[in-house]
Every structure is written in C-alpha cells, then in structure tokens.
C-alpha cells in the first residue's frame, strides 16, 4: 500500500514538474522575470532609499521588513514551543525496548573534559562576542546581520555551558526567563514600527522616526534597531532551546 502510493507520488512529483521546465526561466538569464521586474528596483534604489549597500539587508529589513519581523517571531515561537512541549514529563512511562533500556536517565548536563576551560572563557568567548557585535552592526554595509549575530551569541552560551560545571555557571539563564527575553527581540522590532507610526508615518517607515536627522541616517537607525531586536530574539531562542533540551537529554557518552 505504502509502496504503491510512494511510487505513484514519485512519478507524479517528477513528471508533473517536467511540464514546468518549459515555463521556468533559463538559469542565469538576466532577462528572466524574477531578474527584471522587482529586483532591478531593489538593486538600483537600495543605496539611495535605505542607505544600505548590502541589498539583501535592504530587502530583509527595509523593503520586506514586515516578513523579517514575523520571521523573528517564528524563532521566538519555536523557542517557546520547545519550552512548553518539554515542560511536561510523562508520569507513567511504558517500559522501553530492551535496546533502549540500556540508556539511563542520568539527568544533568554533560561535561566535556577535553576542552580547556581557561582558554575557552578568557580567550575564545570574548572574541566570539566581539565578533558577534561587529557582525550585528556591520550587517548593513557588508555581509552579516542580526541572525548571524544572534547565532554567534547563542554559540557562546553553548560553549560556556559545555565547559563550566552545572553548579557554577557563568551566565545561567533559566529557560522560561530566556524565552521571556527572546520575546523582547521581536518586541523591539515591533516597537520600532510603532515609533514610526507615532512619528506620523506608516508602519516601519523608517524615515518617519521622530529624530531630527537626515532621512538616510534615519534608515540606518531603523535598520540597526530592528537588527538588535533580531539579535536578541535569535540569541534568546537558541539559549532557550539549548536549556530546554539539555535538561532532558542524556548523552550516550555521559558515563565514558
């Protein structure tokens, strides 16, 4: 039954798109519809309108900033969901398979003794953090942006909990708290939009931010504000998910 469905589906999913090959544009064709209609506008006006040489950044946080706001919300939502889903533990558990029974519920976070704690905390982590901040503020002009910065900060936390024992954390954030903090990221983003509304513009219309400077600068300020929001959201979410998972997972090599 299953096999038959699969074969049919496979045939359909390979054959049906074949008729689409006629209509899809040739790869790299500069005259194809996606490469001309809207994209030309973005490429030619990004610097002038958004004061951002990085056109992808301009698209993400200015032209289509609304998408990105909800994208950050999706991050927050995922973190929150993980917390909620893992909040309940089954009371009565059906005995596992013999193959699974060997894994014990050790509890507590694994500690990797192979990593040098001193080097990690004093050298590597500050570098990563500074790099994250650089990526955050430089996203507007070159490659980078809030997501990457948030991910870097999250990685710092990951390194941190890998080297430090459980009872002596350097920065330990409970998962619910972390989720609450992650919520502030998209909130900053949303509030930026509210500020532009209060300034008399439409939602996320950065040049209506009520500050007495040139409109190109206002775009930079707006972009930076939302990037900070994204960073907080992503970092918070990563920390949340890590915390939530770490409480539950017992790694196989725990006892080695």
């Amino acid at each position: 039954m299953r096999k038959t469905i699969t074969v049919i589906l496979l045939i359909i999913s390979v054959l049906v798109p074949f008729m689409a090959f006629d209509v899809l544009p040739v790869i790299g064709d500069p005259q194809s519809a996606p490469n001309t209609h809207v994209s030309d506008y973005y490429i030619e006006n990004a610097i002038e309108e958004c004061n951002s040489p990085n056109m992808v950044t301009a698209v993400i946080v200015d032209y289509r900033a609304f998408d990105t706001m909800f994208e950050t919300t999706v991050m927050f939502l995922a973190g929150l969901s993980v917390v909620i889903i893992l909040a309940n533990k089954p009371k009565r558990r059906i005995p596992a398979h013999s193959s699974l029974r060997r894994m014990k519920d050790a509890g507590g976070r694994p500690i990797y003794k192979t990593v040098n704690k001193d080097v990690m905390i004093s050298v590597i982590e500050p570098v990563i953090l500074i790099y994250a901040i650089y990526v955050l503020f430089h996203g507007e002009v070159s490659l980078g942006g809030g997501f990457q910065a948030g991910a870097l900060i999250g990685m710092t936390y990951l390194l941190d909990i890998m080297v430090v024992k459980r009872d002596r954390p350097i920065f330990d954030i409970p998962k619910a708290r972390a989720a609450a903090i992650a919520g502030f990221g998209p909130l900053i983003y949303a509030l930026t939009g509210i500020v532009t509304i209060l300034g008399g513009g439409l939602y996320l219309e950065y040049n209506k931010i009520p500050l007495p400077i040139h409109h190109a600068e206002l775009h930079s300020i707006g972009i930076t504000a939302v990037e900070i929001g994204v960073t907080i959201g992503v970092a918070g979410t990563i920390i949340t998910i890590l915390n939530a998972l770490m409480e539950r997972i017992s790694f196989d090599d725990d006892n080695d």
Partner: protein
Amino acid sequence: MIENIPVLIVLLPLCSALLCLALTAVSRNLGIFAVKLSCLASFVLSCIQLQMVVTGGTIHYAIGNYAAPYGIEFVIDSLNAVLLVCFSLMGFLTILFAENFGNEKRPMLVGAACAETALLITGILGMTSTGDVFNLYVFLEITSLSAYCLISLGGSRGVVSAYRYMLVGTVAATLYLLGIGVLYSVTGTLNMGDMREILDQGGYDGAMLTAMCFLIPAFGIKMALFPFHGWQPSAYTHAEPGSRPLITGVMGKVPALAMFRFVYCIYGTDFRFVRIGLILLGIFSVFGMLYGSLMAMGQTDIRKILAYSSVAQMGYISLGFAIGTPIALAGAFLHMLGHVFMKGGLFFCTGAIRYKFGTVDINEFGRIYKKMPLTCGLLTAAALSMIGIPPTAGFFSKWYLALGAAGQHEWIYIIILVISSLLNAVYFFRLIEKVFIRQSSELRTRWESEVLELPLTIIIPVVICFIAIFGLGLFNVRIVDILLMTLEGVGL
C-alpha cells in the same frame, strides 16, 4: 493613526504575546490580562475597519510606505474585513475561555500557552489581511507552529498527533512555497494584485497549471479537505481543550480563504484550466461531505464526531468555491463565518461539559441539560445549524450554495447538499438525544456554584456564539451584501 488600523489589528495580539511571558513573570495574571485586552482591542479595531471598508472601499496599506510590488501590502477588501471581525471575535472568546484550562500550579506554563494562542491569533489575522504571497507563507508558518504546540499540549496522544500534523503540515507549507516559486519565476513579483495583472497578459498557462498542482494539495492539507484530511481528526480531538475552539473553528478557514484568493483573485476565471480545477475541487468536496458525515456517525467521543464533521463542513465551503458564482461564493463565506461559531461553539460546549463533569463520551451525557441549560441550548442551536434548520446560520449558507448550484445547473451538488444535511442530522440528533433524552448518568460535578452553571469566562463565549448563530442567520443579507461587494467582481 486611523490609517494604521489594518496593521494594528495584527500587531496588538503579537505584542501582547511577546510580552506575555515577561508579564507573567512579574505577576501571574498580568500576561493573560494583556493578551485578553489586546484581543479585545483587535476585535474593536476590526469592527471599525469593517465600517471603513464598507463606506470607503478597499484599503491598501503599504507597509514601510513602499508601493505595492516592492514592499509588503495589506489589502483589506470587504471580504476579509468581515472575516477579520469574525476571527478576532473568536480569538477573543477563546482567550477568555482558555484561562479555565491551565495548570494552576505552573503560572509560567499558563502564560506560555496563552502566548501561543495569541500568536495563533496573530497568524490567522495576518494571513487574512495580507496581500503578499510570501508574507502569507510566513503567517501560515506562525499559525502552524503555534498550532503544533497547542495540539501537543493535549497529553501524550496530542504529542503524537501534533507530530504527525507537523510532518504533513510542513509538506503542505513546502508545496505552497514551491507553488509560489513557480509563479514568481514567471512573474517576478510576490504581490497578489501585481501577479494578477502580469498573469492576465496571458501565455502563462503552463506555469499556472504547475503552480496549481502544488497549491491545491497545499491548501487542501492545511484546510483538511477530504483526501488530505488524514491529520485532522486526531489533531482536533487531542488538542489542548482551552484553545481547541480556535484551532477547530478558525484555523482551517484561513487556508480556505487563501485558496480562494489564489483561484479567483490571482488566477481569475479567465484561466484556461479553471474548469478542471473547479471540477476537481467539486469532487473533493462532494466526497468529503459524504465521507466526513459517515465517519462521524461511528464515533462515540464527541470531539471525534465534531472533528469528522469538520471534514464534511469544509466540503461545504470548497463546494461553494467549486460552484463559483458570486452567490455560491457568498454562501461559502457565510458558511465559513457560521461554521466558526458553530464548530467553535460546539467545542466551547465540549470544553464546558468536560470542565464541569470531566467526560467527553457522549454515552455519559445523560440529561445534562438539567444542570447546564445554557450550554445545552448552544449545543442544540449549533447542531441544528450544522444540519441546516432555519433560522440558523447553517440554513442560509446552504441556501446560497444551493441557489448558486441551481444557477449553474449543477443539480448533483443540490442532491449532495440534501444528502449531507440528512447525514448530519443522523449524528447530531443522536447527540441531542443523548443530551436531552438518555437516562441521567451519574456524573461527578467538578465545579459547583449557586448562581451560574459555569464560570463567567465560559458563559460569555457560549452566549455570544449562541447569539452569533442566530444573528448570522437572520441578518445574513447584510453580510452577503458586504461580501458581494468583493465577490461580484471575481466570481464566474
């Protein structure tokens, strides 16, 4: 300020959801209170917006003040203005209702669940208002992710059904993305109105057909249309009781609206293969209506009965799309509005009965009407509306559907409508029989009060749903007139 209403409707639940956890950490009820307040405000704003749309015509709201194809645009025509009012009202009622089902001992968890519900509302409202196909995808994902989480809250069965729903739902979202990718590759735009203009120039039939092959299963899965409904019964059954009215009542409707947008607003009725698509949709709906009702007859768990009946009711909605005349489309949307309150209302009743007696097995429902007359009143009204007894909302939507089918000489659809209502009657009268006629069973009351049968936060949704079912029925012409303002232009 007034011109920002379209975006504020979506933003208010979002902001409250983002703040909810932090506020709950400050004080245990503050977060829920903020969410309630924002949902109420969003409902009020959508009422004002409806008034604006009716008097002033379609609202185009360009976010960031970037004109249509370059930025993201909210398009509020009379159709989604009405739906927004309905959805935001249901969202508010569900938030009120959900507060009774949290775990008292874990306030943070209650706050988190509340935030999830608020995000679900955000996603639903956003999907309804947006005029950008990719923005629709983002909102679709917000809706789905929060729904996965809320379904998984309903115990271990809920976790399994949430996982299954997640797999299928992600396939649907991916197919949707692929469909809009194909459309984007030939038009180069993501804006719905702009896409329509470019596609109208002709010569894109192949791409449109390919995209349709991806989009119909995508929306079909999301709205639980008949052959794609596999995930739905267990997910609806095991969802978290507090937010279940929203999940069952509203969540399936929004993809249906999106499907309408694609078929009628983007493709348009000039599309060469539109007939094939509509006939296919008609076949799905007809079999869905029969299958859903037949499956519902065999169940004893009230949640399962209602879940399968949803499969049938989604068939009514897509039947309206398949007929395609403005009057039938109006019928489909009227049914959508009515079904929000019917199915939501029935799940409010289920939740209320569960709250009071802790049972969901209809064989134990012996004469509970003596103890909860209001709830049983709503149960009866909603059941009658499902069958299509006048003067409830269900009758009038069926009327418009049948009238549209008669106008297109699709007699088979009328026959199916009649058969389906009779099948509905079989299991809904069985339910009514259990509630009113069966010997009283010995149920332990979990909640006692001298004055009220239930807490006020349960009674308010129950009463409002009751009023809405009859109000939508008796005053349907006003709503249909508003709907037709948009539908006249797009129907067959």
